């Protein structure tokens, strides 16, 4: 099972002292956080993509390419890549390039984006969110697999004899996750392609996650034989101190003023209603192990630890706790009673091996014929 962090990349004033990092500070902090994630033994760093303030990560492959050059092992991903407003041709090119530079340590999570004005800024209409996600991804899927593409659709200029370059590393496209909070069409899309499904699982009640993952598994079974072979990822949001009360006391002002839920429900209400966990490392371990009860054995767990104006120093302390105390226990505990046939999340190496095995099987079938 893979463990990591995902970041929204918000520039938010620290409510305890009123200071706001500059965009430059925040961008560098995101990089520092990613490097620290590798250092403490996490597997994945995923960045959001946004095209409006107060968010900085508009250019994920630039940031991930830089992080790739400074890490050895860390898997670089997105949360999410806007499949609606980006040109799928550019996504195909950018992430194939990143794949080469990062030696295959790349995957992506597709998302639609929920900010109305971003769509028209990129020539689109939010009311076409689902049709855009479906059409653009079907083109992206093709561009990474077919050398020469003839294509036409509703939302983009047609392509004749187009080849996306560079070709994916070793001829194997990056693994793709599809993220959605409550659109059944996206769970269906992930199942149809045999891709992963990622439930945001922060800011929302667990029932959404349970329903969406259930639907994805059921449809994955329909298309590919077994719901247990589906690839599921979950988000999560935590704040920890060794002592539970210290965690609550320190996090409360950040919670009370946070974008998304600030000035609304109490920390206690929100902790009860959503997967947010504020407390000791042991409480985070217990809560996280409980996720399996409603989604089944899953493949990737990402935590949100750096939003709402939390200072970099505090975020790095969170990473120490995750790396030293939480994730080692989670790895051990999640491995217990895990059926042997539950797959791991695909990596570049496993996809290359699977492609080679498929090619060998096809060749031997030809010989037999």
């Amino acid at each position, binding site marked *: 099972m893979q463990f990591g962090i995902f970041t929204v990349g918000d520039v938010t004033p620290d409510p305890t002292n009123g200071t706001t990092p500059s965009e430059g500070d925040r961008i560098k902090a995101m990089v520092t956080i990613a490097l620290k994630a590798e250092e403490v033994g996490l597997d994945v760093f995923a960045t959001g993509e946004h095209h409006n303030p107060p968010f900085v990560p508009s250019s994920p492959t630039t940031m991930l390419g830089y992080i790739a050059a400074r890490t050895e092992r860390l898997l670089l991903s997105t949360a999410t890549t806007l499949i609606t407003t980006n040109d799928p041709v550019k996504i195909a090119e950018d992430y194939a390039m990143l794949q080469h530079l990062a030696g295959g340590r790349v995957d992506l999570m597709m998302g639609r984006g929920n900010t109305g004005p971003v769509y028209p800024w990129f020539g689109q209409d939010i009311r076409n969110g689902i049709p855009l996600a479906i059409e653009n991804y079907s083109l992206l899927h093709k561009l990474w697999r077919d050398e020469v593409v003839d294509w036409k659709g509703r939302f983009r200029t047609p392509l004749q004899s187009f080849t996306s370059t560079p070709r994916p590393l070793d001829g194997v496209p990056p693994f793709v996750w599809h993220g959605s909070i409550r659109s059944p069409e996206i769970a269906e899309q992930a199942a149809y392609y045999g891709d992963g499904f990622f439930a945001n699982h922060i800011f929302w009640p667990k029932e959404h996650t349970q329903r969406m993952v259930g639907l994805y598994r059921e449809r994955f079974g329909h298309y590919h034989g077994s719901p247990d072979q589906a690839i599921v990822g979950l988000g999560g949001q935590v704040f920890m101190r060794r002592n539970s009360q210290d965690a609550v006391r320190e996090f409360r002002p950040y919670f009370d003023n946070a974008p998304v839920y600030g000035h*609304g429900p109490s920390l206690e209400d929100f902790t009860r209603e959503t997967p947010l966990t504020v407390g000791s490392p042991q409480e985070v371990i217990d809560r996280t192990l409980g996720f399996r009860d409603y989604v089944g054995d899953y493949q990737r767990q990402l935590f949100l630890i750096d939003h709402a104006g939390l200072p970099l120093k505090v975020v790095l302390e969170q990473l120490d706790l995750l790396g030293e105390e939480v994730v080692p226990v989670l790895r051990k505990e999640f491995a217990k009673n895990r059926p042997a046939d539950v797959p791991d999340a695909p990596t570049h190496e496993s996809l290359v091996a699977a492609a080679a095995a498929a090619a060998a099987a096809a060749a031997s079938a030809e010989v037999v014929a």
Partner: protein
Amino acid sequence: MTQRTIAVVSGGLRQPSSSRLLADRLAAATGEELTRLGVTPKIEVIELRDHAHEIVDNLLTGFPGSAFAKVVETVAAADGLVAVSPVFTASYSGLFKSFVDLLPDGSLAGKPILIGATGGTARHSLALDHAMRPLFAYTRSIVVPTGVFAAAEDWAGEEAVERLDKRSRRAAAELAAEVARREPTEIEDPFALRTSFEDLLAGE
């Protein structure tokens, strides 16, 4: 006997509130009319004041807390609705509107609604037809022709009480007739797939 559920939403803020008094009268009258039509009424009363914090929380977070989700579902699942708001500054109260804002898209479509309002004087009575009726036109609901407004003076005096009672009965009879002639409400599952992937790919 068949059964139909009437959700009664009262947006009054005071306790006791005149909106709640009116809502209770309209609910009781609707119950009687349904019974007369051979339908067993089930009345579910929702005082918005009890859910004021949950309403704001839902507006901010985008999802209803688990207890408030049941309130929303009660209204969405009801076969008919009695909706009563106090008139504040020429319209329904902000809390009342916020609650309506949180009902799932389409959940009031085709639903029979009896509108009621309360205010200090009868001069506010047009809020019914200038604010509440258009609101529920937008939600594609079936607002019955008679709306019931109760001013402070309607709660006393033989003639006034009789007039309020008569209007309430007429409105309730209209609501009961609309509810009784319809099939029970079915709630759509928001997580259900409605289009095959082939159709989605084909742009349908």
